[in-house]
């Protein structure tokens, strides 16, 4: 006797691919179908055999080093016949890149999925910044040190203020990349939670804050006075709102 669910449905259930209703229904079915129970047990036993056998083959440490070395070599590619051609290609490539970057920034600016794309990039950037040694390029709690540090590194001047008295001491700043564009990242700390404030210029008109969360991190973004702001942290959403009002009130 063969149960018609013993195929794809058991696998879907085992792999967590059924929706909640489908899974609940299948669990009811399991109570009275021993065939599906056995099929499920077989899948579990196969899965654990595979896990125990340690079939996953990680890359050897030397491979990572080799790749890093060859990435460095990738930068100055010298496979071209003459310098003139190389120079011409570099110019063409720079134009392509610049066009592409500005197209990406503007087209993303208009797109409906802007928030989702932005959020993913911002959360990535935030996570990256939490890696040892990545948080700040300029470490200072003094806004008069941090602000001039950005001069000459960016083609705009981000607003930099210390809010230590309001519970958000400034930690420093760094340059980061969002949507392929260099942006200012200001780092604050809120009761041991790091907060990244990303700032970059925009042509779009002002917009009220919108918020969301991703991978356990809260973000809040808004536009004001030709600047796009995006705050991200694992601090409470209310803390982000507080920082938002501090940043916009001045």
């Amino acid at each position, binding site marked *: 006797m063969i149960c018609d669910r013993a*195929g*794809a449905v058991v*696998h*879907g259930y085992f*792999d967590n*691919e059924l929706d909640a209703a489908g899974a609940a229904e299948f669990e009811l079915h399991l109570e009275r179908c021993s065939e599906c129970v056995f099929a499920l047990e*077989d*899948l579990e036993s*196969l*899965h654990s*055999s*595979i896990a*125990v*056998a*340690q*079939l*996953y*083959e*990680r*890359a*050897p440490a030397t*491979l*990572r080093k*080799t*790749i*890093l070395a*060859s*990435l460095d070599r*990738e*930068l100055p*590619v010298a496979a071209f016949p003459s310098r003139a051609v190389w120079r011409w*290609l*570099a110019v*063409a*490539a*720079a134009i*392509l*890149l610049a066009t*592409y970057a500005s197209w990406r920034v503007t087209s993303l600016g208009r797109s409906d999925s802007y928030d989702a*794309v932005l959020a*993913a*990039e911002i959360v*990535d950037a935030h996570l*990256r910044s939490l*890696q040892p040694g990545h948080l700040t390029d300029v470490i200072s709690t003094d806004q008069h040190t941090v602000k001039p540090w950005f001069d000459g590194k960016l083609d705009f001047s981000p607003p930099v203020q210390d809010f230590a008295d309001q519970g958000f001491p400034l930690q420093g700043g760094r*340059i980061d*990349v969002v949507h*392929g564009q*260099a942006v200012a990242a200001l780092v604050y700390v809120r009761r041991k939670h790091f907060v990244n404030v990303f700032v970059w210029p925009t042509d779009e008109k002002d917009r009220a804050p919108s918020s969301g969360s991703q991978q356990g991190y809260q973000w809040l973004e808004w536009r004001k006075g030709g600047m796009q702001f995006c705050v991200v942290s694992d601090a409470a959403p209310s803390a982000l709102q507080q920082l938002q009002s501090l940043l916009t009130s001045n």
Partner: protein
Amino acid sequence: MNSPVAEEGCNVLDSQEQVRFETLVLPHLDAAHNLARWLLHGGADAEDAAQEAMLRAYRFFSGFRGGDVRAWLLQIVRNTCFTWMQKNRHGKDTDEFDEEVHGPPGPTPEALAIAADSRGRLTRALESLPSRSREIIVLRELEGCSYKEIAIITSIPIGTVMSTLSRARRQLQLALTGPANKESMHDL
């Protein structure tokens, strides 16, 4: 794919872009190596293919639109491996898109099945699967990809992913339980 000029454009990415690549893509090197190892049946080839795939990914990085980095990288790994196999074809992987359910092929199935530990047995069973089944098992069981991710990486419709996965698992179960149960496969 990319024209030479566009590809060159990627090569002149600034160092910030390189850092971005190293933080987003390079952490998935283990996944790249593991998939290459199981697609190519082996050690040194897998390292070379994983390295080549990484360099390709690096060149195409400016075309990456965000989203699932691992799936994007594994697509490149897979393409690299199939190109690799075509270059170094020794008639071994002609079974790629075999829709038939076969027991483990090869001259000595009994010897294979009687083999000592389950690691050896599983390795051989996995090696003997048609490459489509093998890569789906690797992506699901070893890499933990969702059906949707597998469909994206392999460009196979999700329904085919599901049917191939259940068939491949049956074949592995059979290989694990040994030749004594071989007949039961025909009941399934």
